[in-house]
């Protein structure tokens, strides 16, 4: 199975423009923007910033700077309309029976997404980890103790029913995070976030990290930074994006080849690709041709904090009963069998 985006060799040449700083669709004053506004709750609202950005597009009255189209003739707007009307629900199924707790997913995510590192990263409360592997135990004494690992990326909650919005999206005061109904991915605009951290308070999964420091790289190390992913500065919130930049690349490639759809293996997250145990599967949860479609239906499948109604996109599978209890809401020190190990 081809997990990375190369079907026939080279990837499309992307001229200098960090397009993932502001992932599309951009909220703004356009017909589309109004439809967005009217069609979903919890969405970003009407924004003055959006007006200015519209006016400053190519040829607009206020040309911001040369905004090169990133593949001849394809502007972001057109690319967005490529799949107009069709929606996807990108999600993940993690097989906890296969997960060995090796941490390759964590490190691959760090490498792919330009995560910073410090001399002392031992304080997990301050360290930036988008994909984080938790270690849990069944709380029994020797020799009956069991441990398991839970890799936890951003859950890309959709919310449903009574809570029709992603917990973090509806609370962001600056529209710096948005739930895309087209892909199911919760985006983050680092350059718009001003670091109020309300979204961090809202998220029960602790997926959101704050940049407590400016990132620094020892001289020379900045060479391995991935140009597809923005480098974040201090004071902004960041989180797993389901490697959104890879989706963009895959779509651009498909468009350049005259296709509308991308194949399952053309868009895979870095963690999925790296996992040596093959414990992570990623794809469109709604697409019957994708592996996750069937996997999520397993009778051993569960989601974290299902009862809260966040409707997350990450499913976990475990044949061990006590591990499935990890999805429960915290009930007190001795309440659950599951404990942090």
């Amino acid at each position, binding site marked *: 199975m081809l997990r990375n985006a190369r079907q026939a060799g080279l990837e499309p040449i992307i001229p200098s423009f960090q397009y993932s700083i502001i992932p599309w669709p951009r909220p703004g004053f356009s017909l589309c923007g109004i439809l967005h506004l009217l069609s979903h709750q919890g969405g970003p609202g009407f924004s003055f910033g959006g007006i200015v950005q519209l006016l400053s597009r190519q040829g607009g009255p206020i040309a911001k700077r040369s905004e090169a189209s990133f593949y001849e003739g394809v502007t972001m707007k057109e690319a967005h309309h490529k799949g107009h009307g069709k929606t996807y629900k990108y999600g993940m199924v993690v097989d906890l029976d296969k997960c060995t707790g090796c941490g390759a997913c964590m490190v691959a995510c760090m490498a792919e997404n330009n995560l910073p590192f410090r001399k002392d990263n031992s304080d997990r409360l301050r360290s930036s980890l988008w994909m984080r592997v938790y270690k849990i135990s069944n709380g029994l004494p020797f020799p009956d103790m069991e441990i398991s690992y839970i890799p936890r990326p951003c859950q890309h909650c959709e919310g449903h029913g009574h809570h029709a919005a992603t*917990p973090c999206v509806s609370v962001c005061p600056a529209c710096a995070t948005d739930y895309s109904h087209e892909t199911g991915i919760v985006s983050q605009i680092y350059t718009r976030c*001003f670091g109020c951290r309300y979204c961090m308070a809202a998220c*029960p999964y602790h997926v959101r990290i704050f940049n407590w420091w400016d990132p620094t790289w020892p001289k020379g190390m900045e060479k391995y930074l991935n140009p597809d992913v923005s480098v974040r500065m201090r004071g902004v919130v960041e989180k797993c994006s389901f490697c959104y930049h890879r989706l963009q690349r895959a779509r651009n490639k498909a468009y350049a080849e005259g296709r509308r759809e991308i194949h399952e293996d053309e868009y895979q997250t870095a963690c999925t690709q790296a996992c040596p145990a093959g414990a992570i599967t990623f794809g469109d949860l709604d697409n019957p041709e994708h592996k996750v479609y069937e996997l999520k239906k397993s009778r051993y499948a569960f989601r974290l904090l299902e*009862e809260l109604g966040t409707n997350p996109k990450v499913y976990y599978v475990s044949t061990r009963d006590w591990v499935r209890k990890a999805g429960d809401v*915290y*009930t007190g020190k001795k309440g659950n069998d599951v404990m942090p190990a």
Partner: protein
Amino acid sequence: MDSASASFDSALIPEGVKRCKLKWFLLWIGILHGPVMVGVVATLMCWGLALNVTYLNNNFPFGLWIAADLGVIALGAGAFFTGFLRYILNIDELKNIVNFAVVIGIMCYAAAQAILGVDIGQPLRGWFIFWHANVHSMLTEVAFCITCYFMVLCIEYLPLILENRQINKIGFFHGMAHHLHEAMPTIAAIGVFLSFFHQGSLGGVPGVLYGRPFAFREGFLVWPWTFFLFILSAIAAGPCFTILITWITEKFARKRLVKRNVIDILARISGRLLVVYLVLKTIDTVYWVSIAGKVGAPFSSFYANHPYGYWVLVLELGILGVIPAIILLSTKARQNENLLVIACLLNCAGIFMNRWIMTVQTLVVPVMSFDKFVSYHPNWVEYASTLLYLWLGAIFISITYRYLPIFPQEKELNPL
């Protein structure tokens, strides 16, 4: 005042009242600059070195600053509520304290905005809350309203400045002050409207977090019950805060500034509102237990980790709620100055504690079953940068009291 003991700045001092010598005043301001400098250094550290200098972390994105923000706005509710009572309900007596309430209000709201300036990770982008406003977020509403309300407070403060002895001599300003006074009921009404919403939205901030069973409340349309509880607790505590600061000012000034019956009115209203609040809060607590239970979070889990035990509830509602309510409801107790001050102190502390609980304790309570319990406490940088506004507030009140005629009854109570 005879010219022999006249202050250097006596021309600026309101007519018919006595103020201490300028040198003592400057000394006082100078002493306050000590702790102010500490606060300034702490603030500069946050801006220069980034927020790692605090004890905030990814589990505790909200800490002392946010709790203090919510608390100080709740306590500053005295401004709008006194205005409401004076200008809308026409309780005439309150005209003798409404100016000071505005002064306290400005101090509180300025502090709130300033603390936000140090709390957010990118202060230079703070204006994005207006530029890229998200209509669905409670914080957006808060930001707009407190900014507008701060402007309202400034407009309400303006006549006081214009009535300074020297400035008032200028006809234009005198006229302006006069017209502002006439417009005051309208301005106060706008203030009440704005305050109602932002006090409530601050309650909405924790109340909409459906990912946090501890904080989440159902409600009325988009407004969770905490929206209304926050408004109620704010107007119950605001007047008490006004009383408290007045009392402190009187102690520093060593004279009575307001007649007791004015204080008594505020205290009585505060007591009644506090009782209503406590009743509704109790109902809400019971209801909250059931909705948290529905998502599998038993009530006991909220208080299962040291140091957040059941004593928190007892303290907040009992010692800091029922006791001051009893004192404030009793006429005799209200007239005992010591008891009154204790009641006000407990009430304000109770409201502040409520804000801490709704922000910090919300984050303390683990949600995922395998979450490690972590506790939080602020460090000196957070304390200093918060208390900075206490000292600055003291400076502000001192200057305002010295040069501006805030207390209409001062002359009467302190004949020269």
